[in-house]
């Protein structure tokens, strides 16, 4: 299990391949990669600045991953989230989960993303033609979280 918060860009494909990495009990790997889009909420986006809460970020991600491991039989979990300046097209976040079983991997990856979106202290500030703007949280992300709390 690795949790990484970094400013440097990363290679999602390399992280995906490492998740499997010769563990011959791995039957299924599911991963999510979030990218900076060049358009959001009706405006062109030239880049973004990602702020976080150092210390709490790692702690919050660790708790989310622990909760996922308690719910599903997982082999490895890899979470990497960038902070600082990001350009359109660059990867923001990688969440990869390996398991012997397909549905456990799907559910755990989905769960981790839903919690990360609503419980990990990151904030996006986009550069638009009208200047920088803080991204608003989405109602749909709160709803996504509720699925796991029933």
């Amino acid at each position, binding site marked *: 299990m690795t949790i990484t918060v970094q400013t440097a860009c990363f290679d999602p494909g390399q992280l995906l391949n490492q998740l499997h990495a010769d563990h011959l009990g791995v039957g299924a790997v599911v991963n999510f990669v979030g990218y900076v889009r060049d358009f959001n909420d009706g405006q062109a986006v030239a880049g973004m600045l990602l702020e976080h*809460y150092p210390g*709490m970020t790692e702690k919050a991600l660790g*708790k989310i991953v622990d909760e996922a491991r308690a719910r599903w039989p997982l082999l490895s979990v890899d979470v990497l*989230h960038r902070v600082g300046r990001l350009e359109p097209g660059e990867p923001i976040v990688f969440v990869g989960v390996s398991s012997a079983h397909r549905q456990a991997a799907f559910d755990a990856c989905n769960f981790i993303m839903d919690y990360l979106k609503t*419980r*990990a202290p990151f*904030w996006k*500030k986009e550069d638009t033609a009208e200047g920088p703007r*803080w991204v608003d*949280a989405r109602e749909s992300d709160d709803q996504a979280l509720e699925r796991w709390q029933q």
Partner: protein
Amino acid sequence: MLTVVYFARYREALGVGEEQLPWSAELVTVNDVRAQLLTRGEAWQVLDEPKVMCARNQDMCRLETPIADGDEIAFFPPVTGG
């Protein structure tokens, strides 16, 4: 002493990212810290937003969460990572 930290839109609106507040026995919950900050004036009303989020010692918490001397209390808007 309490350490109080602010992030993102709140940090910008308040013009401060971190400060020390003297501890007092009247500060029973996170909300008591918030109430004290709200008396500082207009800019501080961002902390009165219904969706204000808070953390105690780097764990997400509720406004009703009890606090203790030496705690690190954080206020921030809803998170938008991922």
